[in-house]
């Protein structure tokens, strides 16, 4: 019956789109955790045309709205993952350690089942990055995990100027060091020197472009790598800086200070040792929770306490999955482990949502439940930090992309026979044969 209702809504959407307004959907009687503002008991959220149009304890659903009664359930903003490898994308190759010209845009599978698993975990926005085996492995992408994507364009987030959102990935420490690795660095100091040299080159390139003042005869030859680094220098692209050890963290901050780029520290395994320095630099940290220390020399001192240490220092802290290092389906667990180690409940939930939206420059669109923001919503069976809580529904821009009551979506959530294969496109409310090889 529930399926029927949503099918009906889908038909209504289509027919209403023709006249420009979609049928509103009202989520009623839920406990709402809006992240910005206090939790609302028995609250209502109304969404229309992909946006939140009303939220509060005493909101009356508009006439004609589809009512989604969520008594006993909890609603949160869709989760934002600041560091993920879903989509099986690749970045730089083995030819050199710094490749700002390479875009993960050109090497990602929009139909990957890993994207569906992220939807099942309540993730609606993700920063999908190339790896850390380079000082700079290329440009990252901020994606909206919309349903039925057939190509990467279907997942992009476009700004007002028509450009798509994304950052750039840098790394220091051992991953990008290769003993006897030719162009690759063999030490930490060499790593820093190589990065500095490239940014100095980019400054010179920018100066030439600036002096040319649009005169084509005076412009330097186009250089994709330099163009990308100029965007970094101009603070248009955020550097997502993979770094673990306390000294490497400080090196990343030193480079940031020298060149003035915007930075998000990624992993930050020894953040608890330099939390005050991170806070003083006003650098946001995106951290991960791993079940045990070690696995490599740089992460022997990783602690669940990173979250509380950064919170107490006054730094902005968010969480990430690094999928498949940790599976997107249990991203909520990060908050539980952070609270276990002393982080406040409010900041732990903020670190799954709004903090990450800020790090991705998407705070006007996602990360909290507020009027005017994207209708990215998750419906939970209970308390978000309880192990027993399940993600029941995930909505992106007003469309439901995951529904645990749908057998196919449930299979994605739990795993099982067939879950490991890319299931291809399917429509939540329709389990029959769509034709065309679906």
């Amino acid at each position: 019956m529930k399926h029927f209702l949503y099918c009906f809504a889908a038909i209504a959407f289509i027919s209403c789109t023709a006249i420009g307004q979609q049928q509103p959907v009202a989520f009623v009687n839920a406990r709402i955790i809006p992240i910005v503002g206090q939790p609302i008991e028995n609250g209502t959220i109304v969404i229309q045309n992909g946006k939140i149009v009303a939220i509060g304890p005493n909101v009356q659903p508009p006439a004609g709205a589809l009512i989604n009664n969520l008594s006993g359930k909890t609603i949160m903003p869709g989760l934002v993952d600041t560091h993920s490898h879903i989509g099986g994308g690749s970045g730089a190759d083995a030819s050199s350690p710094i490749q700002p010209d390479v875009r993960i845009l050109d090497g990602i599978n929009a139909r990957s089942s890993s994207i569906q698993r992220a939807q099942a975990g309540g993730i609606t926005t993700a920063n999908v990055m190339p790896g850390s085996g380079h000082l700079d492995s290329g440009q990252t992408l901020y994606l909206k995990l919309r349903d039925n994507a057939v190509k990467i364009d279907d997942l992009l987030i476009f700004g007002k100027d028509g450009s798509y959102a994304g950052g750039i990935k840098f790394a220091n420490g051992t991953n990008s060091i290769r003993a006897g690795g030719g162009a690759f660095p063999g030490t930490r100091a060499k790593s820093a020197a190589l990065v500095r040299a490239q940014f100095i080159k980019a400054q010179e390139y920018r100066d030439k472009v600036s002096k040319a003042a649009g005169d084509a005869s005076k412009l330097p030859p186009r250089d994709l790598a330099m163009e990308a680094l100029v965007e970094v220098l101009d603070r248009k692209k955020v550097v997502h800086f993979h770094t673990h050890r306390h000294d490497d963290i400080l090196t990343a901050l030193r480079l940031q200070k020298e060149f003035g780029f915007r930075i998000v520290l990624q992993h930050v395994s020894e953040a608890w040792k330099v939390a005050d320095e991170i806070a003083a630099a006003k650098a946001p940290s995106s951290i991960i929770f791993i079940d045990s220390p070690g696995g490599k020399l740089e992460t022997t001192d990783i602690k669940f306490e990173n979250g509380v240490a950064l919170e107490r220092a006054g730094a902005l802290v968010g969480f990430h999955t690094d999928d498949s290092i940790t599976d997107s389906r249990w991203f909520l667990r990060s908050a539980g482990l952070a609270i276990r180690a002393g982080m406040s409940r409010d900041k732990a939930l903020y670190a799954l949502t709004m903090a990450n939206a800020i790090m991705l420059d998407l705070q006007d669109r996602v990360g909290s439940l507020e009027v005017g923001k994207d209708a990215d919503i998750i419906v939970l069976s209970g308390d978000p930090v309880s192990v027993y809580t399940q993600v029941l529904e995930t909505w992106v821009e007003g469309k439901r992309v995951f529904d645990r009551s749908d057998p196919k979506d449930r299979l994605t959530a739990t795993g099982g026979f067939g879950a490991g294969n890319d299931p291809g496109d399917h429509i939540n409310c329709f389990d029959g044969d769509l034709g065309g090889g679906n």
Partner: protein
Amino acid sequence: MTISSSKINITFFTLGLMILVLAFSLSASAQIAVKGETVWTMAGEPISNGVILVNNGKIEAVGPASQVNIPAGYRVINAKVVTPGLIDAHTVIGLNGYLNQPHDQMALDGGASIQPELRAIDAYNAEEKLVEWVRGFGVTTIHTGHQPSALISGQTMVAKTTGKNVDEATVIPTAMIAVTLGNAANAGAGRSPGSRAKQAAMLRAELIKALENSKKKEPATDLKSAILDRVIKREIPLLITAEAAVDIMTALRIAKEFNIRVVLDGASDGHMLINEIKASGFPVIVHPTMARPGGDRENLSMENAAKLKAAGIPVALQSGYEGYVPKTRVVLFEAAMAAANGMSRRDALATITIDAARILGIDGRVGSIAVGKDADLAMYDGDPFEFITHCIGTMINGKMVSEVIR
């Protein structure tokens, strides 16, 4: 004056030392009462407001506070929830260390594909950091050994997560022989085995040799034959890691051919072969609930343990083996996720206590809170499965081995 002052100092020093010794012997000694708002004995229903008396390393009494009086002189420890010390039914910690560097990865010798003579006790580092790490979450007993990355990688052992050395830790020096079927068992580099069928042929050939040796009047004394003779005589089981359905079926086929004991390990596709596994009578040490899907674990389901258990198959959970991170999983979290995916809390707790103990053959000593058993306890400030709950104490053999809040 000087002399007398020095005498006084010595006297105070001696007195201080005596007090210290006394305090130490009290804390390390044997008489402790653990009070729990909920006590999961795993030998019956949970007890509300329970008391466990510990004396001389063993459980002396357990029951509701109304029935168990705490004798004078017992140290009293309070906890919201008390469970038996947790058992990790399959891990590689102690052999593989947390640094993940060649010098501390000792759970696999890549020199040959069949090495059942490799003993876990010769590689177990009782003071390895990961042993301390899991102990802090309440894990008191581990089944550890050679990793599932070769056809026969070596032996496994059962240890308590305490002791300064292997002798102090060991419960069973040779528990099982670690066998792997599937992609992980291929030797690579053009060496055999390089296919599933070759793996089966090589394993069968080894067991045929062992069977023939066992019939001889003078049993073979080489290390390999001696240990496989114990398998043929059903003294120890093969721990067969088989994730894909095809590998599980091969394990069952070979077990039947040689009438040997088998403990199935991993068994990602177990939920697709419930009737076959049940008919074999073999227990299953199921993969970590949060193991990564893919490869031979393509059909991995977080509901696997729940489905096998519901069919009446003996099931334990494990932290398993990871080549990278997390260098060890925490079996408590794996059971928690099983409890969130179709298993009752009691059954999920059983997979890391009494049911694990039975599969490992140590339920006479550990796995439940019962009079006469080892005093191995885990204490929590809430539901042990919730991520926001802390383990506040771990006791092994009647001694508090961890009081960190973790």
